């Protein structure tokens, strides 16, 4: 299915709400859950979820949601996640991706990391405009959502990785994690360059002299940056 046809499938409002709900969970979602979340009957939700899967916008699989297996565990339920394929339509046709890849390749070869990061930081500051540095995690979530990062608050109690040496054990403070990398295709090809650019952009956007800070904490399948409360004793 061509991108324009796949995107057109989202025109139906129920279907679009289902799609947005599944995407926002960042995990497999069953039919019952999606139906309840959107407030439609299960059969209607199932129909629309399958249309979204046919269009390649969602991927479907089956899973025993009870966590049990073997005889008596029940029939596996159908579950949905967002498909990884990117869809884009530009009218008239534009190809910013090739331009971005070529510029990134040239910057990588010439070692222009510092210049790129400086430009990204300035851009972040410009985007923030006259606003003071981002004041809190909820505000950061809103700001980052508007830029397509798909942020979510990861709450206390989660365990940090070994690399965070300055972090003492104990209740982890909540952080904003970002499910989506808006620069995914270029970041996959030139990770240090583009992820560094992204961090600088977010530092500019959030502000480096406020109560929050952006920090690199890469994990598979997510944006490489987290936003957290900056510690007073830091640096």
């Amino acid at each position: 299915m061509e991108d324009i046809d796949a995107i057109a499938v989202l025109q139906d409002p129920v279907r679009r709400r289902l799609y947005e709900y599944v995407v926002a969970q960042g995990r497999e979602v069953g039919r019952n859950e999606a139906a309840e979340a959107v407030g439609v009957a299960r059969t209607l939700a199932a129909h629309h979820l399958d249309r979204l899967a046919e269009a390649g916008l969602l991927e479907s699989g089956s899973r025993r949601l009870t966590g049990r297996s073997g005889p008596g565990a029940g029939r596996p339920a159908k579950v949905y996640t967002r498909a990884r394929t990117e869809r884009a339509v530009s009218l008239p046709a534009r190809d910013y991706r090739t331009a971005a890849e070529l510029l990134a390749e040239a910057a990588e070869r010439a070692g222009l990391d510092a210049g790129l990061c400086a430009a990204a930081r300035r851009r972040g500051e410009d985007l923030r405009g006259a606003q003071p540095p981002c004041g809190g995690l909820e505000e950061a979530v809103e700001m980052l959502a508007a830029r397509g990062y798909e942020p979510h608050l990861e709450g206390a109690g989660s365990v940090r990785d070994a690399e965070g040496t300055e972090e003492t054990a104990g209740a982890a403070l909540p952080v904003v994690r970002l499910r989506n990398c808006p620069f995914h295709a270029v970041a996959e090809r030139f990770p240090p360059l583009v992820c560094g650019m992204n961090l600088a952009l977010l530092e500019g956007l959030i502000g480096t002299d406020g109560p929050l800070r952006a920090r690199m904490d890469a994990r598979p399948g997510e944006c490489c940056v987290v936003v957290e409360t900056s510690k007073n004793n830091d640096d």
Partner: protein
Amino acid sequence: MTASAPAAHLAQLNVATLLHPLDDPRIAPFVEMLDPVNAAADGAPGFVWRLVEDGAADATGLRPAGENVIVNLTVWETQEALWDFTYRSGHLEVMRRRREWFERHVEAHLVLWWIPAGHLPTVDEALERLAELRANGPSPRAFTFTSSYTSAEAAQHLHPAPRTTRDARPARAGGTTAV
């Protein structure tokens, strides 16, 4: 638990030319990250082995490619495992700041190649693969992340080139836990 152990592992060498000696304060942030990042590697999914100098925690004291060139030689179960560690772990922060500590390389500074599972590559063998990549460009014998080959495509290239006689010694695992 389902799949049997793969017959081939992926070896990785990268070389980095230090801008200043390792004990220079300008390199200190890099040195501070060595232990935590190496620990993350040792615990990363798909990690098999990394070169360690005898009696040391890492390979930064070995300088087989030049006095100011540090080498990083590792073995992984799959290319995905290596990619995720390199670019989707605390290691990315080291990569992001590489220009502060290392010279920009004109030639390839990273090479990947498939080896028989269980084999530990020697430094000589690794440098030979890097030389091949630099001389001939990517091939099933020596390639990069962006120009990669599957272990099946490289099946006849798993062993070092037979043309040179080598006094192949096992890589210096140093009896560390990394093996």
